[in-house]
């Protein structure tokens, strides 16, 4: 049995063995499970390696970045990755293995490769995006049609209001007097509770989604960002499937979060979001003004066309009327001439007929008069022959009794007084 040694001697032995058998430095790829800045300026971490399923640990080691190194590495790391060194990140670090008799095994970080972390973050984002794609929801929000007017805005932002206040101010002081209705749905925009908090805000908006045209997720400028807080599957899925278009302005220049990928419109900063909204509304206003101009111009055009048409009608009617009158007058004249001609003709014929009749009548009358005259002559001659005076002249006489001519002697009896008429004078006698 060998001589017992003290703990210090044993630890020294371990330290010497390690120092002599290990390389001075190693590039180590591991995940940070703890990370904290101590008051003395040193940065203490814990490295872990998980099993393939990610359910258990295969290895664990303490680590430290001494204050002087940390002050050099941390800003560069943050600049490149947009991340502070924190639990959950995969890192590639150059470490030297240190064993101290009192403090034990520590991996002292001398350098860090931010590109590795960046690559790992990108891989995680890709995995989330791939999953969303497989589920067929990756582009759901992008495919929503942006409404023509976009001024009722549900804002998800930090309640510590500077960012939100600036955003409101910028929107309300636009030069075109565009109207915006804004409501803040407060959420934590940094740290481990980002996912839960934004999900809650989205749920609150969803319960009144008819009141809003779009959702804006913004984070005030200047926040040193842990962008990977926004790279979670649940958050991305909720945003992708949200029924209103989502606009992001989470304040980073280099890289896109998963949220930016699924959002309808992704912009760098809250200021850019406000500018986008103002431009959108200005365009909407211009569209209305254009409509107004078009309608005014078209109205004038229609009126002018109608007036022109009316003038033309008027001209046609005037011309047509004159033409008709001229034609009418001509026909009238023609008819009047024909009528006149016909009348004269007719008059002449009538006159001829009348004179013919007159001649005939005259003839007939003359004939008749001559005949009558003749007849009268004959009668007169006959009358002459019958005249009693003429007979008396010849010696005949005429006897009357009481004024009556006596033709038979028997009519008389003696004593009757008779008168005998002679050619010259009368004889009164008495019958014997």
């Amino acid at each position, binding site marked *: 049995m060998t001589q017992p040694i003290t703990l210090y001697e044993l630890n020294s032995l371990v330290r010497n063995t390690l120092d002599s058998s290990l390389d001075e430095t190693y590039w180590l790829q591991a995940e940070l499970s703890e990370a904290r800045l101590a008051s003395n300026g040193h940065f203490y971490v814990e490295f872990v390696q998980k099993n393939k399923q990610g359910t258990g640990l295969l290895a664990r080691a303490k680590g430290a970045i001494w204050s002087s190194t940390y002050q050099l590495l941390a800003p560069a790391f943050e600049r490149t990755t947009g991340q502070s060194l924190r639990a959950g990140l995969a890192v590639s670090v150059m470490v030297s293995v240190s064993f101290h008799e009192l403090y034990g095994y520590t991996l002292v970080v001398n350098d860090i490769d931010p590109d590795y972390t960046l690559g790992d973050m990108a891989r995680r984002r890709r995995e989330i995006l791939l999953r969303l794609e497989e589920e067929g929801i990756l582009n759901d929000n992008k495919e929503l049609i942006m409404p023509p007017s976009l001024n009722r805005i549900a804002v998800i932002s930090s309640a510590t209001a500077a960012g939100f206040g600036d955003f409101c101010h910028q929107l309300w002081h636009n030069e075109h*007097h565009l109207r915006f209705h804004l409501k803040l749905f407060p959420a934590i925009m940094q740290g481990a509770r980002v996912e839960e908090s934004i999900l809650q805000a989205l749920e609150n908006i969803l319960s009144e989604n008819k009141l809003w045209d779009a959702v804006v997720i913004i984070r005030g400028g200047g926040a040193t960002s842990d962008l990977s807080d926004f790279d979670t599957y649940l958050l991305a899925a909720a945003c992708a499937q949200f029924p209103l278009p989502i606009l992001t302005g989470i304040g980073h220049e280099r890289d896109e979060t998963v949220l930016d990928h699924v959002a309808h419109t992704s912009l760098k900063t809250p200021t850019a979001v406000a500018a986008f909204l103002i431009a959108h509304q200005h365009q909407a206003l211009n569209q209305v003004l254009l409509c107004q101009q078009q309608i005014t111009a078209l109205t004038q055009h229609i009126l002018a066309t109608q007036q022109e048409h009316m003038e033309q009608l008027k001209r046609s009617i005037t011309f047509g009327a004159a033409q008709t009158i001229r034609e009418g007058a001509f026909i009238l004249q023609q008819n009047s001439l024909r009528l006149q001609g016909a009348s004269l003709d007719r008059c002449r014929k009538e006159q001829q007929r009348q004179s013919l009749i007159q001649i005939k009548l005259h003839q007939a009358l003359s004939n008749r008069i001559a005949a009558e005259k003749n007849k009268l002559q004959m009668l007169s001659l006959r009358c002459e022959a019958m005249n009693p005076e003429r007979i008396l002249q010849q010696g005949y006489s005429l006897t009357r009794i009481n004024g009556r001519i006596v033709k038979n002697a028997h009519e008389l009896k003696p004593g009757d007084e008779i008168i005998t008429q002679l050619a010259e004078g009368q004889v009164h006698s008495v019958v014997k």
Partner: protein
Amino acid sequence: MKKKTLNYEEAIQRLEQITADMESGKMSIDELAERLKEAQNLIAFCKEKLTATDEEIQQMLKAVEK
């Protein structure tokens, strides 16, 4: 007026329809007067939806500063 339930999107669509109808050259003078009146109302409605008065803006700013 039926404007009660009208939203912006419908209003702007209607305006564009009226413009198209006017462009088609088939609109009668009788219809023109009616459409023109409707269009004026729609334009006023859309403008009102898009723009705010100074007074309204001041009120909104006050509300957010509280």
